[in-house]
């Protein structure tokens, strides 16, 4: 079950992510996990600790004990900053020190409603036209799609490392690292 998105919002975002990064032999953006990444970000505070900063030092993918899934605790100031960013200022005085902030949750909810269920029945070219009409939102989602495809999978995206695998990218290589020959060779 999604952490934040409704089933309909999830479906619309799947369609959007599949257009932002279409399938071409490698899976599309939604299949690589972009929607789950965005949902995890929007619902970061439904987890304890919140899913803001993965743990360290190692993911276990190249040795060492896996610790990326042990997310870091936030200080009160860090929690205030991240809640403001994600939930918005919502009229709460301490969140409006620099003026009102529209949270990511509100931006996604409003913009997905604007795109509406009807985008699901459009053909790909018409879906692209709709995305160009809401270019600010499309730009925001695209940034998150890039993070979801190429960030560490512990943040909810990069399903089965599909984002790294189609590029033959190794990802986090500690504690193995690379050999001197790999550094200096062609």
């Amino acid at each position: 079950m999604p952490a934040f998105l409704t089933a309909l919002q999830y479906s619309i975002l799947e369609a959007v992510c599949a257009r932002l990064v279409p399938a071409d032999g490698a899976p599309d953006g939604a299949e690589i996990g972009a929607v789950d990444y965005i949902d995890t970000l929007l619902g970061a505070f439904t987890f304890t600790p919140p899913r803001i900063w993965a743990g360290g030092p190692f993911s276990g993918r190249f040795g060492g004990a896996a610790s990326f899934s042990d997310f870091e605790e936030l200080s009160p100031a860090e929690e205030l900053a991240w809640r403001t960013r994600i939930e918005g200022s919502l009229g709460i005085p301490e969140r409006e020190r620099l003026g009102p902030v529209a949270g990511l949750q509100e931006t996604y909810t409003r913009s997905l409603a604007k795109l509406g269920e009807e985008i699901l029945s459009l053909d790909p070219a018409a879906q692209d036209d709709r995305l160009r009409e809401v270019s600010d939102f499309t730009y925001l989602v695209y940034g998150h799609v890039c993070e979801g495809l190429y960030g560490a999978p512990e943040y909810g995206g990069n399903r089965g490392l599909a984002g790294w695998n189609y590029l033959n990218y190794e990802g986090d290589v500690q504690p193995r690292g690379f050999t001197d020959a790999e550094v200096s060779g062609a």
Partner: protein
Amino acid sequence: MSRDFDAIIIGSGPGGSTAAEILTEAGLSVLIFERGRNHLIDLDNPAILPQRFSNDELKYMTRHFLGPDPWAEPRTFRTSIADGDRQVIGEVNNLPATVGGGGVHADGKLPRFREDDFLVKSELGAIEGANIADWPVTYDEMEPYYARAERLIGVAGRAGANPFAAWRSGDYPMPPGPPMYGALVTSAAAQKLGYHPYPAPTGVNSIEYDGRPPCNNCGFCAYFGCPIHAKGDPVAPLRRALLTGRAQLRPQSHVSRILVENGQATGVEWIDVRGERHIELAERIVVACGAMETPRLLLLSGLTSEQIGRNVMFHMQTFVFGIMPFRVHGHIGRSVTHVHDDHILVDEAARAAAAAAGLPWIKGGLVEHCSPSHLIAEAKQYPWGPQHKIMMRESPMRDRLLGFCMQGDDLPQFTNTVDLDPAVTDIWGLPVARTTYQLHTHELVASRHHAAKLAQIMKETGAERIMTATSPKTTGDLTTSHSEISQVPISRHVAGTARFGTDPSSSVCDPWGRLWEAPNVMIADSSLFPTGSGYGPTLTLVALALRNSRAFAA
């Protein structure tokens, strides 16, 4: 109130941690305040090196893990008073707010300055509109401190490899690490055209050193903390200071002001992680918050010198990129392994370019041979749609991109300032640092002159396409070959906001880094620099902190 410590150090970066080592070595007890979190060192048992940092682009590059959070602790920026109170609120040239400070995220290139960098005014001469001054210390006096700084941090390099280097009393404590493939390509091209690339002096272990392992080339170097402590970050001096039993490190503790009475500091006010305020008293205060937060703290403390915050300098970065017909795998290795110094020389061609623009001289800076290495940053540059994966596979902006980054010398100007923003506050209610900054014609002319030379080298590599960019962005007719990145300088090499000198009317600190206004306060960061040079500031600020702390402890 009692005094529990002989000295308070504000900031745990390279300057503050060096001061901590020297003051504790001299027998003083010190309390180190750090506003950021601690991931670097085990405070209960400093002999153990905890492993907390990770290869995680999202955490470090996108989500501000090393701090400061740009909403909780923003800065502001404008290019001149005519722009109003500010144009930008948020991230302005942020260095990490974390135990170890800027030493944590840097990829550790640690060059020395040259002899003439300490004597720009007397050797090269004044330039109209610039506030150039000689340093109150010479290279010859600094050399032993440079040598000691290289040993304490652990710098890998090869003496004699750079024909333009200042004299040195001995070799580096470690040989250079393995050269990156891309740097071998650009170095060969540079050599062919008569330039002198060499292995960058780097605070990254090439062999086991000081109980820390050699670097294993993971590629998450610049902007990341090192997961295995192979970097010469401030863990080494902090560990030595803590192991004396005379130092205490207090993370997530924000000093809000220095208490000053009748020309003497008596202590500091600080804010804990819950937002509660406390007082700590001491007879000596060391300020090492970096060249933007240090003047902010001095102003918040009510110090009144007209010179505080003046002459802020960045490096003007000039980038020349080439898209190669082959893969360069810039994600394998320690970010930058080669540099060249040729553009720092004021040669005949540089003087001719200067004269054509009505200037007596121009100076460029150290050129780093580099290549981008991170996927998310790359992906965001490409368009959405079917092009996305085609571009990611072909990777013109990462895996086939080689670059030069010149850290161009930026002249001090009296009107380039860091002061307190009149309205924007941080999460604790304190006014934030505001930068007012414009390039001098010198930087524009030097950038254009040297960019053309760097483009010639890039052409020699066989690049398919060559692009030039600068930071800060440039405008006007000098810049027809430049594209824009941003008007806020992205260089993290910041200096000059509390310069030291021999005359209180034109400097903030005396020749030993102590405030003229309150001599029991010493500054231990690049705020002291009267001029910037074309080299990164870290090794020089550490060497200065070694020299000045010894005197401060006496």
